[in-house]
C-alpha cells in the first residue's frame, strides 16, 4: 500500500508533498504555462517531471483554480498568471477533458496516488457571478445564492463522476469559503452541504477525499472535521482535528528559501503524530527547486530518526 493511505490509516507517521503543481513544474521545464494549463499531455509531462525530481508521496493534477468556471463560461487569461476576467458569459472553454487526460497518463506513469483538484461548489459559484456580487448575495439574496451554488454543485457532481471512473483520488479546494472571507455561520449554511455531497461520492468509490481551504480556518475546524474527509489541507495546522492534517510549511517560507525557517517550520509540524507534511498552498511558480529539495531532505532526515 502507498504511504499516503498508510498515514491516513495511522499505520505510518509521515508522508510528504510540497504542493508543486502545473505552474511550478512547467517553470522547471521552461514550458509555456498557458499551454500546459490547456493541454492534458503537456500538463501530465510537467507534473511527472516534478514528481521525478522531488520524489514526493503523491501527485496533484492542478493547473489553476478556474477550469470548471471556464467550462461554465467565465473568461480567463493565463498571462502573466491565471486570472478570472469576469462572470459567466456564453463563451465556454472546456478543459475538463484535458485534466482527465492528464490524470489518466499520470496514473500509468507514477507509482504514488494521483489526486485531481476540483473546486468546492461554494467557490465555483462565487466565480460564476463574480466574487463580490456573490458575497453580498449571501446576505441579501439567499435564493439566488442557493441557485448559483446548485448550478455549481450539479456541474461538479458530473465532473466528479467522470474523474472517479478513472479511479483517481480527489482534492476539493474551497478558498472563498475560508474564514478570511466568510463567517463560520455562512460556511455552515452554504458551503458545508455541497462539500459533504461530493465527499460522500468519493468515499463510496473507496477513493481518497481531501479538502483544501487556504487562509484562516481556525473558526471552522469542527465543521471541517464533520465533513468526514480523509485529509484536511490547511494553512495553520496547530488546531486539533480528527481528520488527518496536511500542511506545515508556509508558501512564503518555501519561496523565501530561508533554510533555518524551513527547518524550524518542519520541526514544529513534526510534533503531530500523523501528518502529510506539505506547503500551506501550492508553491509559487518561481520557487527555487533547491528549496523544495531541501524540504524533502529535512523531512526525510527527521522521519528516519
Amino acid at each position, binding site marked *: 500500500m502507498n504511504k499516503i493511505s498508510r498515514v491516513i490509516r495511522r499505520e505510518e507517521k509521515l508522508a510528504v508533498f510540497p504542493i508543486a503543481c502545473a505552474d511550478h513544474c512547467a517553470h522547471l521545464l521552461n514550458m509555456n504555462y498557458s499551454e500546459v494549463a490547456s493541454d492534458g499531455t503537456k500538463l501530465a509531462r510537467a507534473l511527472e517531471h516534478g514528481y521525478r525530481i522531488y520524489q514526493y508521496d503523491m501527485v496533484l493534477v492542478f493547473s489553476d483554480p478556474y477550469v470548471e468556471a471556464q467550462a461554465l463560461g467565465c473568461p480567463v487569461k493565463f498571462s*502573466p498568471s491565471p*486570472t478570472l476576467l469576469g462572470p459567466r458569459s456564453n463563451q465556454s472553454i472546456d478543459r475538463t477533458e484535458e485534466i482527465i487526460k492528464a490524470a489518466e497518463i499520470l496514473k500509468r506513469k507514477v507509482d504514488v496516488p494521483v489526486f485531481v483538484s476540483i473546486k468546492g461548489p461554494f467557490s465555483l459559484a462565487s466565480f460564476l457571478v463574480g466574487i463580490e456580487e456573490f458575497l*453580498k448575495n449571501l446576505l*441579501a439574496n439567499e435564493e439566488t445564492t442557493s441557485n448559483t451554488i446548485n448550478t455549481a454543485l450539479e456541474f461538479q457532481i458530473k465532473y466528479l463522476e467522470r474523474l472517479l471512473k478513472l479511479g483517481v483520488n480527489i482534492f476539493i479546494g474551497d478558498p472563498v469559503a475560508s474564514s478570511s*472571507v*466568510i*463567517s463560520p455561520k*455562512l460556511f455552515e449554511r452554504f458551503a458545508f452541504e455541497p462539500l459533504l455531497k461530493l465527499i460522500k461520492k468519493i468515499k463510496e468509490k473507496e477513493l481518497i477525499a481531501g479538502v483544501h481551504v487556504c487562509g484562516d480556518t481556525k473558526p471552522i475546524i469542527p465543521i471541517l472535521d464533520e465533513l468526514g474527509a480523509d485529509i484536511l489541507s490547511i494553512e495553520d495546522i496547530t488546531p486539533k482535528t480528527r481528520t488527518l492534517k496536511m500542511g506545515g510549511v508556509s508558501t*512564503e517560507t518555501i519561496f*523565501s528559501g530561508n533554510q533555518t525557517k524551513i527547518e524550524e517550520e518542519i520541526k514544529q509540524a513534526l510534533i503531530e503524530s500523523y501528518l502529510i507534511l506539505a506547503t500551506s498552498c501550492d508553491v509559487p511558480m518561481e520557487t527555487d527547486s533547491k528549496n523544495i529539495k531541501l524540504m524533502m531532505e529535512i523531512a526525510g532526515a527527521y522521519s528516519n530518526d
Partner: protein
Amino acid sequence: MDFDNIKKAVVDMEVEKVKDLVTKLLKNKRLPEEILEKGLIAGMKEVGRLFSCKEYFVPEVLMASEAFYAGFDLVSPLIKTKQMKEKGKIIIGVVEGDIHDIGKNIVKVMLEASGYQVVDLGKDVPTEIFVDSVTRENPKILAMSALMTTTMMKMKDVVKSLEHKKLRNKVKVIIGGAPVNEDFAKRIGADGYGEDASAAVSLVEALIGE
C-alpha cells in the same frame, strides 16, 4: 438619537432604512456634514471595528458599505466638494500579477468613509499605471495592496520608479496585504504599513493628518 439611528442602520446593513433616515434628517434641515460624520462615518467605523475583531466578515462589510454609500450618495452632493478635496486624494490599487482585491476594496470603503477622495486603479495594476496616475492625479497618498509573496516585490518597483521620475517626495506611499509588514515597508522605502482597514485609516491620518 437621530445620528445614532443612522449609525445603527449602517452597522445593521439596512440600505433602505439608511436612505429613509438620511432623507428625513435632511428635510429637518440637519447639516449634511453632520449626517455624514456622526451617522454614516460613525457607522463604518464601527463596522471596521467589528471586522477587525472577527465579528463581521467580508460579506457583512460589503453589505454595510452598500448601506453607507446609499446615504453617502444623498449627502455628498450637498457637501461642498471643497471639504473632501482638502482632506486629500488617495490612489489605491493591487499590484501587477495579483488579483486579490477583496482587502483593497475594504480599505477603499473605509478611506472613503473617512472623507478621503479615493481613485481606485483596480487589481493587476502595472507599475507604469501607478506612476502615471501619480503624475496625473497628484494625490497625497499612494496605497498599494499585494496578497502574494510573488507579487509584493512589485511594490518596490513602483517606489523605485517614483524615485526615478522624481515623484517620490510628492506622495506618501503606504502598503498592506497579508504577506507584507512594517519591516518590509521600511526596506522598500514606503512611508507606512497598515495591518487592516482601520489601521489604513489611522495611518493615512497620521501621515497627512488633520
